[in-house]
Structures are given as C-alpha cells and as structure tokens.
C-alpha cells in the first residue's frame, strides 16, 4: 500500500518539473545557508572565546570570594603555590599563571592617569596569555626583572612615553600603606582590545608583591584548559578539591562566562539576531512551499474528486498530499544540507579571509581569517527547522482537501 502511495507522490512531485525544481532550490538554498551560517557563528564564537581568554582572563580563575565585584586588594589567594600543585595534577589543565592587581595613579613627566597595575609571572604569563606576543615596542619582561614595566599602547600614547622612560606608580598597599615606586618602561603592548591597552600596566609579580605589601599572596590564579569543552570539568574538579580540603578557604572558581559577561551577552545577541534572520528565511521558503501546494491542489481538484469517487477517504488523500510535500522537502533538505556541509568543510579547512575588517575583528579577539566549524548542532538545527516549518505549512493546503466534495471537485476541476 505504501509503495503505490510513494510512487504516486514521487511522480506527482515531478508533474511540473520547473516549479518543483524552484521549490527544491529554495529549500536547498535555505539549508545550505543555515548550515554554513550556524557553523560560521559557532566557529567564530569559539575563536572569539579562545582569543579573548588568552588576552587576559583565561578559561578559569581562582579568586577570593567577592574579589571580582569589589576588587578589594585585601581579598587574596594566600597560598597560590598550593593551588598550583593541585592544578598540576589535573590532566585537562594546559597551563596556569598567577596575577595580582591594584588600581594606582601612574605619572609620566607630562601626564597622570588612573590605571590597573598587574603583577605577572613573566614565564608563566608567556605560556598562558598572548601578552608576550603582542609587544609592539621594546622587550618582554624576564625572570629577575624588578622595577620594569610593560605598558598598553594607548596608555603609552596618552602618557607620551617610549621604552626607557620612567613612570611613577602611586597606590595603596594591601596593609593600607602607601605603595609608591618608580619603574622603567621596558615594552609597549597592543592586545587589540582598546580598553585594556588604555588602562593597564604589567610589572613582575615579586616586585608587585613587595611594593603593594602582598607577601606571597596573589589575586588571581589564571587557568587555561586544553579545550573550551574542558572548562566545566576543570571547574568542577577544582571546586570539589577546594571544598574537600578547606571548606573555609573563601576561594571561588569562576569560568570565562562569569569573568566576561559582556562577551557572553555579545554572543547571545549575535545568536538571537541570527535566529531572527534564519526564521525569516525559513518563512520565505515556507511560503514557496505553500504556493506550490496550493497551485497543485487547484490544478488537480478534478483528479482528487475522481480519487475520492473511487473510494479514497479524505484522510488518505491528505496523507498522500503530505507525502508529496515531504518528498519534495526531503530532497531539498538533503541536497542543501550536503552542499552546506561541503561548502562549510572547505572554509573550515581553508578559512574565510575578511579583508579590511581586521581592526573590528581584533576588538572581538578575532583573527582576520575565520574558520567556520561543522558540528552536529550546526548541521542539524537549520535543516530540522526547515523540515518542521515547511511540514506545518504543507498541512494547510493538504487539510483543505478534506473539505472537497467529490461531485464539486469533478464538476469544477
């Protein structure tokens, strides 16, 4: 029984080949676009996140509870070495580093600005962040350096300094004392994020601890996992370890989403605006399907009347029509999804070069060449949405057939 239904449906689909081809092309194009665009979005988000975490936040940070909101210099990680030992034991952790931060005034010969002074472990920092690779002038810090500093490019411009110049730092130490020192500019960096480059200075961590009376403590232990997918596992492992060892440690583990809520929001906005566009695209395709089937029903009214006269129930006729729409939709989805996978795969391997947008992309931590990333989600979400919406659309003309009366259909067809 099903075989003749399928045979009829398939042959009916091709009764008007030009119209069918146009409809199939519309469905296929929508699927191709959806597979590519979703892969593009997911791929660029991953690139964006991986780039952003390597500028300064890392995938995870261990901090004293409340430090992220208050930035109180007294909220510290007392024993970073112990945390480091725990991290060494986690195979999914790629690398980690320690940092300490303090808001201070920085003065050159001509100008004074409020900045964030960051104490870094030069060797560990070079493995964890892109700081060492983003130097534009001068040299990177080395182990053993003391009163030397790396300055963000825009801050250096505002302070009108070059490598070799001296800067005066004036802030408050952890114990409430005045923290004051003079450092020499060793290098100038450009992370690509203007806000960061306008407001930060990096000095060696031991020197920071001395100037700001930190003892051996730090404010952040910055962790990079091997992949983005490792983040929840590492977070869980560290949190459990901290709780079991010392429930009163007062330390918390924050992931990149908590550390960079702005980035998460930007991704969500991009995703939602993308979904609105995709929905409109699918609606246009759905109207194409609707048009095809309404035309088919108008043209074949007499035939439906005859089939009903022969004893076909209205329900069976509806099934037959839905089979036709499904056959056409599935062919379009198959072709479009396959083409989408092939096109996306090509750009996944070779990358998509966006010339002229380098500055804008750098603000989001993106390289000039973006690689879309195929995944089960990016392959299935779009075509599944097309299948559901076009299926619902085809229901309307198919259900209209239920109202047909054989004698009217035969007479007016």
């Amino acid at each position: 029984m099903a075989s003749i239904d399928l045979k009829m449906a398939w042959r009916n689909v091709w009764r008007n080949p030009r119209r069918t081809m146009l409809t199939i092309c519309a469905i296929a194009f929508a699927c191709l676009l959806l597979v590519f665009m979703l892969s593009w979005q997911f791929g660029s988000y991953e690139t964006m996140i991986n780039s952003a975490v390597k500028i300064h936040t890392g995938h995870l940070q261990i901090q004293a509870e409340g430090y992220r909101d208050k930035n109180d210099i007294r909220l510290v990680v007392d024993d970073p070495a112990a945390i480091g030992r725990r991290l060494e034991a986690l195979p999914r952790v790629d690398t980690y580093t320690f940092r300490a931060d303090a808001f201070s005034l920085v003065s050159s010969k001509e100008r004074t600005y409020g900045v964030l002074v960051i104490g870094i472990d030069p060797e560990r920092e070079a493995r964890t962040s892109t700081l060492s690779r983003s130097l534009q002038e001068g040299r990177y810090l080395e182990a053993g350096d003391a009163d030397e500093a790396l300055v963000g490019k825009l801050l250096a411009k505002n302070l009108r300094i070059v490598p070799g110049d001296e800067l005066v730092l004036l802030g408050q130490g952890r114990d409430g004392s005045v923290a004051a020192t003079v450092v020499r500019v060793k290098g100038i960096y450009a992370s690509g994020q203007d806000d960061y480059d306008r407001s930060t200075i990096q000095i060696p961590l031991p020197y920071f601890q001395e100037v700001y009376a930190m003892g051996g403590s730090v404010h952040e232990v910055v962790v990079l996992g091997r992949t983005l997918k490792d983040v929840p596992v590492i977070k869980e492992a560290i949190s459990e370890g901290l709780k079991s060892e010392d429930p009163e440690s007062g330390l918390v583990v924050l992931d990149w989403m908590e550390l960079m809520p702005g980035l998460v929001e930007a991704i969500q906005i991009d995703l939602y605006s993308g979904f609105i566009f995709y929905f409109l695209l699918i609606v246009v395709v759905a109207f194409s399907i609707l048009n095809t089937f309404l035309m088919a029903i108008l043209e074949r009214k007499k035939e439906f009347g005859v089939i009903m006269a022969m004893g076909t129930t209205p329900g069976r006729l509806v099934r037959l029509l839905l089979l036709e729409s499904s056959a056409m939709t599935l062919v379009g989805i198959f072709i479009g999804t396959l083409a989408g996978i092939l096109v996306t795969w090509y750009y996944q391997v070779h990358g998509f070069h966006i010339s002229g947008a380098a500055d804008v992309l750098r603000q989001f931590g993106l390289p000039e060449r973006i690689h879309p990333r195929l995944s089960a989600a990016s392959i299935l979400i779009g075509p599944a949405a097309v299948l559901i919406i076009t299926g619902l659309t085809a229901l309307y003309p198919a259900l209209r057939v239920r109202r047909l009366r054989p004698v009217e259909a035969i007479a007016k067809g």
Partner: protein
Amino acid sequence: MNIVECVNVTKTYRQGKMEVRALGGVSLRIKKGGFVALAGPSGSGKTTLLNIIGGLDAADSGSVIVEGNVLDNMSQTELAQLRLRKIGFVFQSYNLIPVLSALENVEFVMLLQGVPTKERLDRARTILDDVGLEGLYDRRPAELSGGQQQRVAVARAIVSDPAIVLADEPTANLDSKTGRELLEMMGEMNEQKSVTFIFSTHDKMVMDHARRLVLIRDGLLADDQDRDP
C-alpha cells in the same frame, strides 16, 4: 431484487441568488443485473441522479438505498467505503490518474481494498486483457487513445467486482465506432459478470443498447421503458 431504490428524491442547486431545481421528486427502482440508461437533454437532472445514487452528492430530501445501504445519513468516510466496495465509476472524460500506468490505474481500487499484490496484479492484467488492452499495461494515460483510456476506465470500474457501475456519458468523447465497441464490451461484462450498469446519456446509441430506458425531463421521470425480454 432491487439493487437501487430511490424514493421521492429532490435536489436543488443554488447559483448565486438563483435556485435551480435539478430533481423534483424522482422515485426509481433498478433490479440487479440491469443495463439501464438514464436519458434526457442537458440539464434534465440525469447526472445529478447518477451522482446521488453513487453517493457523490446528497439528496435534499427523499431516500436512496443501494444494495440495502441507506445513503441518506452516511458520513463522507462511510460513503467512501460504500463506493470502494460496491460502486464503480466511468466518467465522460475518462479521468484516469495521469501519473499511474494503465495497470496501476486498474490496481488502484484493489490497493484501497487491500487486495494482496499477486492477486491484484493477476486480476488487473486479466481485466485489461478482457477489455482488449493486452500489452499496454505500462502505458500512461497520455500515451493511450481516448477509446483506450475509456477501456482502462471501464476495467478500473469493474475489476473489484462492484455491485453497480455508474457511467456518466461514457461515449460522449468517443467516435461512434469506438463508442459502439465500448458499449458492446460493457454489455458482455453485464451478461458475464451480472454487474449492474447505469448510464446517464443523451447518446442514441447508448439508449439503443440499454435494456431499460428511463427518460428524465426537468428533474422528473418522464418515461420508463423496460426492454428486457
């Protein structure tokens, strides 16, 4: 035994604000095995009566009984089942399913009835041979002449052994030679298989072949001639 019984059947169509009376109270009994022509000029109501007997249209009032089944209050699904089991249709313009071959068109009704594949194919081939279409099984309707298409339509109508075949102007689109051959073929089916044939027609040749001629004029029975020996 009456296979069709119509009692005081009326039908009025509405065309815009106008009402057109198609049947004004027709009562008619047709015996099993009959070869009956409902004749009359265009607009006389003969096709309306045929459609009501076939459950394709509903009477406004009166009663229609087909092989013991009262059609008056049946749902669309019940009427579809009745047509599937008891009634075969032959239309003026053949009305074969264009995407199916001759064999598949004949198979279609048996498919709806759930006849097993082998039996279905055997019966479809046999009936196509009987109507003179041996070797044309795989031709689509567009590849057959008008006469051949109407033969497929007759084969389709009788293949599932219906109680009645209702034929609406079956020879109207055929030349006289092909029309005569078709009528003779249906006559043979009527005699050999005892299938009741009811035609609506204004073709004199069909009226001449009929063993009972029912004349309808202005929606009323005008004459009823029984020519059975």
